[in-house]
């Protein structure tokens, strides 16, 4: 006990010394530099990534969603028009939903009068770019249109660029461009 008493008495003076403060200050400055360097390195995009595929999981799930949601968005029948729209809108972001509703409003009258049945089938689906929040997919779609009083069915072979966004939930269509 008597050996430890002087030692414990030295601690306060060491902790309270200005020299220790200088040493700690130098270490803090070095740590700030190291931390800045590590932060910059962590924020750096992986080499070779050019806005293409940053997530293989997003590529897989996004491509499946693009196929399913594109078929829904581009298919409708005159006698189930409202239900088809609601089903398609469930897979769209609010902004795109509004755009889709405006487009559908324009075709509604003719769809009803001509008893239009439009079925879209995806014949090929692929991913252009993908990250955890957004997927761009190139989808080849065949749209078969049948109308009242016509035995002929029209087939349109379309190329569709679909952008999907994912917030907290599932993938949703945020943009769609037929070209």
């Amino acid at each position, binding site marked *: 006990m008597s050996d430890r008493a002087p030692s414990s008495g030295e601690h306060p003076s060491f902790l309270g010394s200005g020299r220790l403060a200088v040493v700690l200050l130098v270490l803090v400055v070095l740590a700030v530099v190291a931390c800045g360097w590590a932060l910059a390195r962590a924020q750096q995009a992986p*080499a*070779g*990534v050019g806005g293409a595929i940053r997530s293989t999981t997003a590529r897989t799930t996004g491509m499946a969603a693009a196929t399913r949601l594109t078929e829904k968005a581009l298919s409708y029948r005159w006698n189930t028009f409202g239900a088809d729209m609601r089903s398609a809108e469930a897979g769209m972001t609010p902004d795109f939903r509004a755009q889709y509703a405006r487009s559908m409003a324009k075709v509604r009258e003719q769809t009803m009068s001509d008893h239009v049945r439009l079925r879209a089938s995806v014949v090929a689906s692929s991913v252009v770019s993908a990250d955890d929040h957004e997927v761009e997919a190139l989808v080849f779609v065949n749209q078969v249109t049948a109308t009242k009083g016509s035995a002929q069915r029209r087939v349109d072979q379309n190329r569709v660029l679909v952008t999907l966004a994912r917030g907290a939930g599932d993938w949703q269509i945020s943009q769609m461009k037929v070209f």
Partner: protein
Amino acid sequence: MAEARSWGLVNVVLGVVLVALVAATAFFVSQAPGQDPGRVSAQRASDEYAALTAAAGREAQAFLTVDYRHLDPTARAVLAGATGRFRTEYAKGLVHLRAAARHSRARSTGRVRVLGIGQLDARSAVVYVAADSTVSNTSTGHEPQPRYYRLRLDMKRVHGAWRTADLSFVS
């Protein structure tokens, strides 16, 4: 004694700051590229994607470009990016292609609009290409007309480079 207490307080604060900085540095280092297997995997996939789509794009562009006056450069470009059955069949068909192109005075300029990867593994891939071309020949009255294509390219890795093993139109 009061001075020692002041220095003590300063040193404690500096010590806490130092520990926090060391912890933050360790965290950021762990997040850097090359440390996270997921990010390394994504980087590899992205590099692979770039090489694959570049090869498919070149091939589609070459395949859709025809000039009856200078067919050899096009043919060479197609053959350079081709392998297997596609290369053999294209080479075989060149005589007919030359004759038909000369006969119809065909000219076509291909333009790749969008490429996407359908399937991808270490040795093979399927790339879909949306491409346009402007075509003129005797049947168009030598007036340029637009054409729109949906292509499927089956790609194979040959000696580390992607080559087109099959090319077809998606109907």
